[in-house]
């Protein structure tokens, strides 16, 4: 995978498969402390200690279609290659949090990628899940800005109107792209 945003999508898919009702994706870029931290937190079925240890093994998967999993090991490798690491906190019946950290300026750190496309795809495909996305950027001189998206208000207004109706899709996409775009700009200045 070539983007951190794709890893986030992949990990979020695990959360969906774990029957979560609420999933939060956080992306925190801190240029001052030279750290990039991304996490996916869910309230799904969680894992026992034995399973939690095994998900780091590329040859473990709950899928039935083939024998390798790869998702979490790939993210772990990407994080470790750029001076960071992966942590997994989980409890059966409570949920799971997967967090990966990267040294922001590390030459091997893959780009963040298209966060809004990742968010939009998840939001539209799994309307029954409560999604929240947090993207925070702290500049070199310590100024923080964040884009907090929570779909509760949005869904209240939409009611039974599907998000795939073209007008709605345009609105939601615009909302995500503007929010993410305004912050992403600050990381290059």
């Amino acid at each position, binding site marked *: 995978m070539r983007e951190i945003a794709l890893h986030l999508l992949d990990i979020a898919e695990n959360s969906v498969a774990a029957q979560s009702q609420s999933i939060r994706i956080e992306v925190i870029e801190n240029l001052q402390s030279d750290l990039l931290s991304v996490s996916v937190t869910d309230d799904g079925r969680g894992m026992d200690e034995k399973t939690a240890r095994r998900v780091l093994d590329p040859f473990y998967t709950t899928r039935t279609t083939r024998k390798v999993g790869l998702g979490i090991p790939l993210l772990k490798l990407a994080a470790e290659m750029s001076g960071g690491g992966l942590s997994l906190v989980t409890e059966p019946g409570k949920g799971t949090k997967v967090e990966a950290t990267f040294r922001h300026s590390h030459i091997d750190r893959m780009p963040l990628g298209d966060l809004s496309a990742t968010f939009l795809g998840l939001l539209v495909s799994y309307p029954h899940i409560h999604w929240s996305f947090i993207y925070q950027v702290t500049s070199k001189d310590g100024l923080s800005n964040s884009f907090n998206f929570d779909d509760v208000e949005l869904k209240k207004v939409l009611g039974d*109107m599907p998000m795939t109706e073209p007008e709605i*899709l345009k609105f939601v996409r615009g909302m995500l792209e503007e929010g993410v775009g305004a912050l992403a700009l600050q990381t290059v200045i």
Partner: protein
Amino acid sequence: MPAIKSLEELKRVREEALQKKKVKAAAGNVQVIVAMGTCGIAAGARDTMKSVLNFIETNNLSDVSVTQTGCIGLCEQEPILQVVVGEGPKVVYGKVTVEVAEQIMKQHVQNGTPLKDHVLPI
């Protein structure tokens, strides 16, 4: 982000969409399913999804539901896209790049003719 103003705007957008949807409802529902397992994502499924959503938006397609599925065991054919028109059979497409997705949306979803070249024999 001016959240309150945005939601007011959304209410208006919703009303407009509702009116259009009523008119088009007779066309029948189309389901587009993107396979989004690790294999699919690594092969570019997110951009395939983006292309599908983009087509819906730019061509004003109503009544298309877009969902996802996990790995269906044909990892070498990813990105995989499935299309179901009304009560019809499920058509499974393989190696659906952004461009192929656009063709499928145009030819199959919009005009009802499957794109034979990319259909997987399953």
